[in-house]
């Protein structure tokens, strides 16, 4: 089966796995990041010795979704009625997803993988604390460094554990770029769900100027694009088949995927 078909199949299985009729009544369908599904799929393919790749991809993705869901929890304001119920269910749906990743891996009897993922989750939460509750003076670079790590921490740690270290920088770059793009949309007010923005909260909680942040986001995005044009894309032919596929996907829109490619119109790399 072609890679993209397998990935789409896993994508639908994840949706089915996290499906809960009562949660569906009150909460939006949880987002499954197909880019992350593909990345995980190719990592396991590259490693070559995992039999039930589908189950592994599902477990890591669902763990990620559990953590992402908890990002939606609003701070301390007292809510009532439907909004309160939605917040309550958001907490609990995140817990539900977190339980599922362990459940899936326990079914696979892969205790080692459970250990890797749970360690990565701990580190990710520490990282988030450093991002939102910086203990020393923090500048924009500090926030960017942490944001880059937060965006792909589970996948990067997994890649390291699988011994696929040469992919990590490329993966971290891509998901960081994707996040920066999203953050710029939040700051441009082209998106309304600002409570899931990381930088929006930093601007509210610190005295860093919003315009400065937007300017730095643009600079950082350009830096990454230039790095890819100069260093990564020219070497694509000598990289492994799976990494080549991933880079192709990252830089081009694939019509099989339902997502809106964030890179569309932003990066136009010629092979």
């Amino acid at each position: 089966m072609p890679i993209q078909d397998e990935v789409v199949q896993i994508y639908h299985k994840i949706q089915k796995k996290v499906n809960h009729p009562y949660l569906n009544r009150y909460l939006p369908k949880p987002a499954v990041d197909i880019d992350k599904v593909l990345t995980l799929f190719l990592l396991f393919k590259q490693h070559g010795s995992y039999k039930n790749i589908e189950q592994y991809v599902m477990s890591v993705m669902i763990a990620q979704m559990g953590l992402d869901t908890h990002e939606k929890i609003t701070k301390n304001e007292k809510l009532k009625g439907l909004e309160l119920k939605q917040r309550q269910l958001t907490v609990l749906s995140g817990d539900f997803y977190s339980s599922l990743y362990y459940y899936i891996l326990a079914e696979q009897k892969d205790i080692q993988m459970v250990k890797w993922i749970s360690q990565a989750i701990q580190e990710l939460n520490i990282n988030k604390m450093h991002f939102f509750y910086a203990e020393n003076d923090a500048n924009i670079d500090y926030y960017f460094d942490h944001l880059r790590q937060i965006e792909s921490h589970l996948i990067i740690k997994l890649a390291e554990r699988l011994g696929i270290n040469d992919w990590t920088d490329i993966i971290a770059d891509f998901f960081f770029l994707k996040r920066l793009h999203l953050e710029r949309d939040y700051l441009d007010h082209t998106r309304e769900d600002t409570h899931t923005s990381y930088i929006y909260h930093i601007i509210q909680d610190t005295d860093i100027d919003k315009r400065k942040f937007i300017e730095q986001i643009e600079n950082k995005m350009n830096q990454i694009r230039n790095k890819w044009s100069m260093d990564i894309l020219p070497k694509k032919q000598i990289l492994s088949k799976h990494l080549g596929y991933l880079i192709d996907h990252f830089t081009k829109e694939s019509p099989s995927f339902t997502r809106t490619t964030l890179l569309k119109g932003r990066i136009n790399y010629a092979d």
Partner: protein
Amino acid sequence: MTIAGIYRTQKRNLKEIEQVMENLLKTNHTTLHQAAVDLLRAGGKRIRPILVMLSAEFGNPNHEDVKKAAVTLELIHMASLVHDDVVDNANLRRGKKTVKATWDNRVAMYTGDYIFAHSIEHMTGVHLPYAHQLVSKAIRDISLGEIEQIRHLYNVDQHLRHYLLRIKRKTALLIALSCQLGALTAGCSHDIVRKLYYFGYFIGMSYQIIDDILDFVGTEKQLGKPAGSDLKQGNITLPTLFALSIPDVRQRVVSCFESNNEQADWDGAIQLVKQSGGIEYAESINERYLAKALNILKSLPQNQVTENLRKIAKYLGKRKY
């Protein structure tokens, strides 16, 4: 031996478990570390580790996996409490400020996720795939139970079976798992592991029913939170469920649920539930679970361990706060 005596016999084990938990939760982020340490130091009865340790005495209690299971289950419990306080918007637990009240919801979410991940990582020290299947299934069912609890908030038409299923998932499963895992990691026979699971399940049900009774009859000082909190949050527990069968009480409760929280006569509704016979009814159901738990113990080898479990069961099932 008294309950205090049982705790004394486990003092060294409990101290070791506390130490392991404190070491595990160390981090380089001050707030996260403080939130985790505050939770640890807020204490509690440590009923889950005690049950793991006591159940393990039917096999080899010194097996290294036993304490790993005890630490895991207590950390899972702690993690769930931090998130529960966000769900309930609770500022106090055991008379102390909650993580969300001391910091905010975001810190509570990260702290809960962090502790939960630690609990699972610690469990990976146990190399029994079956044990992982038990723990992961229990965690999944507990989280589904929490969702069910929200679903049935303010639902005055629910049945006894809804309540029982809810408290099974909310409380009894983790207590049952404590006994089951204690025996399993100590290398007990399948029969003993199974019986201890049911023993834990029955005392877990009893424990939650008593908790629900105390929410009506306890004082704010004893409870560490305002009395009647369950009803005010729309959580229909066993005393209320019984009281709802009386038309006048039902009308008053429904009227409280339908009106704005501040304007509702909660004290009046709480009084009516207390006078309805709901407390006595809940006590009678509790007695049944307690009797089932004690009955199971009769089928286990009769020794000091069984005696200690009997005392723990009676203590939990008859506690006043």
